[in-house]
């Protein structure tokens, strides 16, 4: 190596850097493994299509999701310009499906973000601080675990009304429990590592250690759990919609579409079939990615 290669910006140095063996980080490795996993790639493609349909679809559909046409009641697919049929109020199912897909995906992402923030902070603080604080915080989690999910949701609904945004928050506020347990477990083992001790010796405050050293190292399991929480949240929302507590008409979500579909499945089976297929594909996409990520990030399987 010539001396000039040590000078930043010199052509020799640029050449040296180009020929250097590229290091592979944990994340590069994980990405390569993920890309080799056929199911995970299929999941990503499915989801990409779903997201695209949810965003672009409403502009392409020939009808609006809430336009009631009295003459178009229960038209079978392909009749009267309705590509996949119309519902009991003569609304175009395709337009409603696009709208519902968007709402469900949005609820999935927003509610999961809420649960992510609460769960990670709660779990990391409990695990890092330990002792009495940990015991109290985990007792709170145990207690909330022992209350039925539907109890919370109904109470939140009757307290705050059937508000679209509150559905996000309600579901997110209930789904963080498992996340906090996972994060706490990981934090407990991370806390023993030398680099945390080094950070403490360097005089960092606990909050700095948690946010700069603990949380970034938790990303693996957290990412996996997030991809599995989103479908769980979408399911929870549909479940609420099925009970009439979720998204209110004329807005649609996959859950309300399926709920309406079950009511009218005898005269108009397409109202049940298309939303169900969309829901199954979406959930499948997330689950495939989640499983793929778990395999890709799990060092045991190397």
């Amino acid at each position, binding site marked *: 190596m010539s001396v000039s290669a040590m000078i930043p910006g010199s052509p020799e140095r640029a050449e040296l850097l180009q020929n250097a063996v590229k290091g592979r980080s944990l994340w590069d490795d994980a990405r390569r493994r993920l890309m080799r996993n056929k199911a995970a790639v299929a999941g990503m493609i499915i989801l990409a299509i779903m997201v695209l349909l949810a965003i672009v679809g409403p502009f392409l559909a020939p009808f609006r999701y809430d336009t009631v046409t009295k003459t178009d009641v229960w038209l079978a697919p392909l009749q009267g310009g309705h590509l996949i049929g119309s519902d009991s109020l003569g609304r175009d199912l395709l337009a409603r499906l696009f709208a519902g897909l968007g709402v469900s995906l949005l609820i999935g992402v927003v509610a999961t973000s809420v649960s992510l923030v609460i769960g990670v902070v709660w779990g990391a603080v409990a695990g890092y601080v330990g002792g009495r604080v940990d015991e109290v915080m985990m007792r709170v989690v145990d*207690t909330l675990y022992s209350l039925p999910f539907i109890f919370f949701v109904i109470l939140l609904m009757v307290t705050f009304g059937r508000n679209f945004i509150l559905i996000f928050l309600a579901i997110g506020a209930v789904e963080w429990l498992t996340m906090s347990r996972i994060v706490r477990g990981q934090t407990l083992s991370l806390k023993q590592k030398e680099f945390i001790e080094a950070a403490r010796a360097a005089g960092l405050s606990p909050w700095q250690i948690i946010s700069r050293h603990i949380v970034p190292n938790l990303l693996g399991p957290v990412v996996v759990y997030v991809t599995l929480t989103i479908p769980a949240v979408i*399911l929870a929302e549909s479940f609420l919609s099925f009970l009439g507590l979720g998204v209110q008409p004329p807005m649609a979500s996959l859950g309300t579409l399926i709920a309406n579909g079950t009511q009218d*499945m005898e005269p108009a089976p397409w109202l049940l079939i298309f939303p169900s297929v969309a829901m199954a594909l979406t959930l499948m996409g997330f689950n495939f990615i989640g499983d793929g990520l778990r395999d890709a990030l799990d060092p045991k399987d190397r």
Partner: protein
Amino acid sequence: MLRFLLRRLLVAIPTMFLVVTLAFFMMRAAPGSPFVNERQLSPEVEKAVMAKYGMDRPLAEQYFTYVKGVVLHGDLGPSLKYKDKSVGDILKENARVSAILGLSAILLASIVGVTLGVLAALRQNRSIDYATMALAIIGVCIPTFVTAPLLVLAFGSKLGWLPIAGWDETTIVLPIIGALPRLANIVLPVTVLALPQIAIISRLTRAGMIEVLRSNYIRTARAKGLPEWLIVRRHALRAAILPLVSYLGPACAGLLTGSLVVEKIFQLPGLGKFFVISALQRDYTVVMGMVIVYAALILVLNLIADLLLAALDPRVRLS
């Protein structure tokens, strides 16, 4: 073991207490009252009704009265909506249906799920493995409120093999559980409840089994010349179902306390549906009773799961 049990029960007491307290005050903080939806009551009558149930007293006093009743007499109080019925009676009536459905579903799911999981692990990457994994994916991705109406449509309406909904009792009466329902009534609901569980159980069993079959003691057992079925049954299965045991605890609690969707679609008189109706009507005492039953079930089933784990895995120490 006895010490472990005692310790766990002692820890459970504050948790139960917190659950009751939290549920009580959350319930009361929500707007609405159990008496508003009825025929417009005159203020005097409403006052009298409130006084009858002690609801004219300060909230803290009501809370202490309630907790005292539960702890000292095991009395969950009267229902506020169903006149002349106590919460205990209501729970008993409805729990029967949910318990029969839940138990049948868990049994079916465990038998089918473990069998499929073991077969898939033994024939890894063969057709039975792929079929099982496909079923596992379908079971997780298709929610019960889709499978239930589809099965009703197929076997109830179109083929006419099974009743669409309802709950008829036979003359067979078991102790504790009471009269059994007709088999035809529960085939569809139990299948719907079991499907997602089969998916999860078969996946857990397959993963556990594959890991265990690679371990040294299985190789030793093979080297000894033990027949394969004996290796699987006596050595591998025991270790492979460990993750399953910890999963089944909370899953059982969920199934036993009823599944709303299934009870709604098949019109079954179970706990789940009752819970939602009571919460919407602010039947405070019924909801509280339900919450207590659910929390107690979770605690007890988790405890059983831990004991079972210790019995199955000699490495686990109860402490």
